[in-house]
């Protein structure tokens, strides 16, 4: 087991990932408090909700609290009686608890949150949601039936020998988003098919994911020196800090991070996590290499890392900055410091002075150039290892207007669905039946509420023509792509846009906000608009596409050249990154 040189967070270890109530209507398990959970006098709480209703008080069965004062293990027993649920700690009733007498438990699957909380506040330090099934049968029935429908026929294979003892730890900050779930599943399938041993960890996950995912805090005792971490950085949170401080080899997969300020109004908690990342940049320096979501992301992040590294280096050298911004460095001893500093790389050039140079100068001069050191780049690839194989996905019917514009994307502010609605309203003024379907996945609840508000209040006269589909599955997506008149995206996110690739596959004309990302996928094709274009002009273009067959065909034909066949590029780059980090550096 690895010795941690940094303080370990408070967490609980439990060996089971799911439970079913026994014939005696009880479950029993043991938890092991770890890290700061042991020392700081925190409390351990068993907090139970219904899986189908996570609201308080209706779906809340109750909570039971146990003070963690130096306990290295706690026996927990949850019993179900006619009066409801009760939890016992080390055989004794909880002293502090709240129990919902009106909670109906019969036959319901529950979520048991194992929580560590600061004793004096509501700050949650650790939360592990685990499913509790009413009986063994329900548990068995819940075993995941992995849908490998979109797997490519010819799975990419590694071309190098993988050391048998080497395990990969795939780590996510959060597995809440559709994108992270897809990437996680693809990574798992790819590694599994290539006989590479792996485990998945995350800080935020659901009770259903808990079957295959472990809390990221487990890495504190689980990570071995010979392991390789592949950490997906998509937002803030404690995962980066935990992973960065592990001494095994580490690869960071840097997603494009949105501007936290644009999330504040909708989800201040999420925005805070993004904002806090700015203060955690020094942790990125601890990784052995970085993969980036796109070349644009690489450019932005690299610039920022160089700045951070330069400032750190200057601080180490005791550099002073004058009020007018000039940095002065005392040259004494810099070369000595450079020679061993991991923060920089140096290159020395020699030159011979021409004849006639002043005598007090030496004949040969050495010029040492120093460049701040940042983790090596291991390439760029989108967070989707291969394109969907739509042929293998069965269509699934869903509600839509007869003729409609389709927009696909998570419900988050940088998708700018409000702009989509605004432009659609312009279109709808001039077209009596054209509808809009926005198919997405829940991400920021406040933003979802806002969009529904806009539809029902601001654009109420067109509300019947606007369909929001939350948590759309791939069968439904296929159904929609095949029937849509046009694909629209107002997204300003500079990361990879899988939905544009999908729209290209279905030969839909595309109207999209111009970003580095869309430009890289569409080139000059499609209809791309920027911020200086008036929305009524965009609406006019949409109407023209919908009403003019020739125009429609010319747009689609122009787009045709952009459906690249590089379907395994991401997987191969991923393998590259593993090989470079493990094999070459070993």
């Amino acid at each position, binding site marked *: 087991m690895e010795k941690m040189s940094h303080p370990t967070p408070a967490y609980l270890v439990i060996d089971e990932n799911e439970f079913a109530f026994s014939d005696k209507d009880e479950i029993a398990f043991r938890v092991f408090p770890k890290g700061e959970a042991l020392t700081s006098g925190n409390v351990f709480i068993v907090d139970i909700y219904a899986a189908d209703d996570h609201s*308080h008080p209706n779906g809340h069965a109750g909570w039971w609290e146990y003070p963690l004062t130096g306990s290295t293990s706690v026996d927990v027993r949850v019993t179900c009686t006619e009066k409801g649920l009760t939890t016992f700690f080390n055989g004794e009733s909880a002293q502090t608890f709240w129990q919902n007498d009106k909670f109906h438990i019969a036959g319901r699957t529950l979520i048991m949150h194992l929580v560590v909380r*600061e004793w*004096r*506040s*509501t*700050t*949650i330090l650790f939360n592990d949601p685990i499913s509790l099934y009413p009986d063994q049968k329900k548990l068995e029935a819940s075993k995941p039936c992995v849908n490998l429908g979109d797997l490519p026929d010819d799975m990419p294979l590694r071309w190098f020998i993988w050391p048998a003892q080497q395990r990969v730890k795939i780590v996510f900050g959060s597995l809440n988003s559709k994108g992270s779930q897809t990437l996680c599943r693809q990574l798992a399938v790819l590694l599994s098919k290539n006989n590479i041993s792996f485990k998945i960890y995350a800080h935020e996950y659901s009770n259903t994911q808990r079957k295959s995912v472990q809390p990221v805090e487990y890495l504190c005792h689980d990570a071995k020196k010979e392991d390789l971490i592949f950490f997906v950085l998509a937002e803030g949170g404690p995962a980066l800090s935990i992973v960065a401080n592990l001494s095994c080899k580490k690869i960071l997969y840097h997603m494009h991070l949105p501007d936290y*300020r*644009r999330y*504040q*109004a*909708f989800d*201040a*908690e999420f*925005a*805070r996590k993004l904002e806090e990342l700015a203060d955690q940049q020094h942790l990125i320096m601890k990784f052995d290499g970085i993969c980036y979501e796109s070349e644009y992301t690489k450019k932005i992040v690299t610039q920022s890392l160089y700045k951070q590294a330069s400032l750190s280096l200057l601080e180490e050298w005791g550099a002073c900055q004058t009020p007018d911004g000039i940095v002065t460095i005392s040259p004494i001893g810099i070369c000595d410091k450079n020679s061993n500093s991991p923060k920089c790389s140096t290159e020395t050039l020699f030159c011979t002075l021409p004849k006639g140079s002043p005598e007090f100068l030496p004949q040969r001069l050495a010029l040492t150039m120093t460049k701040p050191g940042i983790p090596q780049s291991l390439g760029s690839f989108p967070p989707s290892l291969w394109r969907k194989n739509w042929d293998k996905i069965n269509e699934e019917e869903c509600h839509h207007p007869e003729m409609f514009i389709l927009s696909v994307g998570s419900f988050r502010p940088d998708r700018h669905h409000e702009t989509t609605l605004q432009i659609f309203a312009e279109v709808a003024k001039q077209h009596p039946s054209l509808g809009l379907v926005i198919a997405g996945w829940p991400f920021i609840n*406040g933003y979802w*509420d*806002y969009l529904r*508000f806009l539809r029902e*209040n601001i654009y109420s006269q067109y509300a019947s023509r606007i369909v929001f589909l939350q948590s759309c599955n791939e069968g439904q997506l296929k159904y929609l792509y095949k029937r849509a008149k046009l694909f629209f995206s107002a997204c300003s996110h500079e990361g990879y846009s899988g939905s544009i690739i999908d729209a290209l596959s279905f030969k839909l004309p595309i109207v999209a906000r111009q970003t580095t990302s869309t430009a890289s996928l569409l080139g000059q094709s499609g209809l791309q608009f920027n911020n200086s274009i008036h929305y009524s002009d965009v609406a006019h273009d949409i109407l023209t596409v919908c009403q003019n067959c020739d125009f429609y065909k010319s747009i689609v034909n122009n787009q045709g050249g952009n459906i690249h066949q590089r379907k395994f590029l991401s997987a191969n780059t991923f393998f590259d990154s593993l090989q470079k980090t493990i094999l070459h550096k070993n």
Partner: protein
Amino acid sequence: MLDIGVVIPQLSKYGGAERLVVECITRWQHKHKITIYAERFNSEMLEEHGIGRDVALRTLSPQIEGNTYSFLLNATFTPKLWSGEIGQHDVYNTHLWPLHLLDLEPAVWYPHEPLRMLYDLKNDKDLISITSEEERRVHIYPKYNYDNVNKSFFQPMLRSASSFDKTGNPFRIVANSKYCASYIESVYGRQASRVVYPGVTVEDFLPPIANEYILTIAQLWPHKRIHLILQSMRLMDNMQLYIVGSGPEKQQLIRQAKELGVYDRTFFLSDLTNHEIQIVFSRALAVVFMPVREPFGIVALEAMAAAKPLVAVNEGGYIEVVDDRCSFLIPPHADVLAEKLLWLKQHPLESAAMGVHGRELAQQYSWDRTAKELLEELEDAHDAWKNKNSLQLTSSNDGPIFGAHYYGWYGNGLGSEHWNDSAETGTVTEMPQLGYYSSTSGDILEQHLHMAENVGLDFFFFNLHINSNGPIQREMEAFSLMLERAAYLKSSVKICLQLCLYDCTEAILEKIWITLFSKVFRHPTYQQFKGKPLLSIFWTGQYDGDVAFLKNLRKHSAPVTLLASSLRLYPPHEEPALTFGAFDGWSLFSPLELASPEHREKLWREAYSHASAGQQGIRCFTVSPGYDDTALVASARQWNSHRNVPREDGKVYRQMWDTAYTLPQPPDIMIISTFNEFHENTQIESTVSSGSQYLELTRSAIKRGKDTWKK
């Protein structure tokens, strides 16, 4: 249309004061000419609010930063510095402290609040000066940071600032609440002329979307009592707090939130767009506002507009615009605050009803109303100030006005500029009683003003010479100083300019016009004639027939009364071809040079009869005590056959005045050429050789003239 100068320290962030300015200007810009002065602008913010390009933005010098005396300097020196940087306008609307110290007239000061650390907050050290061992911290809005002040300097600085604070004397003060009006009266001993409440645009706010969290909006300073809200959070489980705002207390508040164990439920939001702020409002359960005696507190109105219940401390200005059907006004107690918020959470229907009532009530306090009321005050202030000043003009304008040509070109002492510095142009043969004085001496200028006032002169034609390098610097300084001293002395003698153009380029003239219109013509001591600034051009005939020059001159001088002070005669039938109707009136500059003694009077009368050469037919008559430039050796003067017209002990001067008294129609302007031109010996100023003889003659002549021509 009024020319309004709006002055505010900064217009870069979107605080309450800045919002009021932006909202008002948005509404005034189409009716009046607006110029905004600030040390910093956020052009995106102005654009977002539809402030157009017709609104001029002028940048002021930055406030002093980074030294021990920053606070004191910004409380005293900076407004005086800015006074000199701000152009002339019909009326000024100044915002925030300490812009009542600007020397602008007439100014309507909207203080928003006095500097509270000097008054109502001065005894609360926790609120205004969080102490360290050696330093105290002070703050002047709208800065985001504190100025650090040495501990031993702190109280003396506050006392100095307080003393200086009382010297401000804006024409009017407008308060943002009755509470603030009484506060202002207690501090400055002056009543606010009006209360104009800030406003809100209800239609801009989204209807409620959710009831998720507690919202407070404030800059993060101690007296906003955010710490109290944090403490109340500890008494409420499962409630989130959104704090929108920035400020130097942020880290301290984060630390407190962590100590209280509520940091995971407390979020600090900043850099939101306007629309995002409206979304934040629409998702809130309630709005909390707990500042110490806020002079107004626009957040209260915004909460009402957003249809959210307000829980606020029962003090300050906003309590005048809320009622108990839309708000809970409470003492500043954390437990009471928590109790009210929990009640709102548990009573969503009642909470919604409070919001609905608040929104209805907020309709009364629109920005339209604020802009209208403040503009009414500006217009009224302008009219009142104009009336006050025009009364003075009317009294002195009862009959002709009497002026004298004045020269401000003299250096300090014999041998310096214009005191025998050049045989060609600088020779003097008389010595003034005041000695060979400097024209840039305030004392000398004051004495000249006194002399002029004593003899009954209404104004000086200040001769400003302009060559290819621009105005002569010394003359420009002397002119500015004379305006200032005349204002300081409250002298009845006004000043106006006579431009003497020599090789003056078009570009220089453009600059001069800008300066004249922005800084000179509206100066309270500048001479007006028929409701317009009076301006004279020394007309040698050099530009006769120059169509481009004269049309340009006419174009620029449209808002002024333009006289030609001519070296030649101006028969009306010839002028259209020579000067194209550029001038409103004509006068002779040096009538004694034009003819031999036996023909002089006839010629003066003829010139006088040619008043119709000017567009307005202004009748001017010029008198001189004598003329003698024979000491000057410049070759250009040699051709003049009348270069020595002896004074004959005042006889010539009296003869000229007598001619004036018998003119067929009374003059509009009587001009004495000159007050102090010593090279040509036309001066009436007291000299060593003749004493005050010519001043005395002038005094009696003007008195007689006023009696003769009294309307």
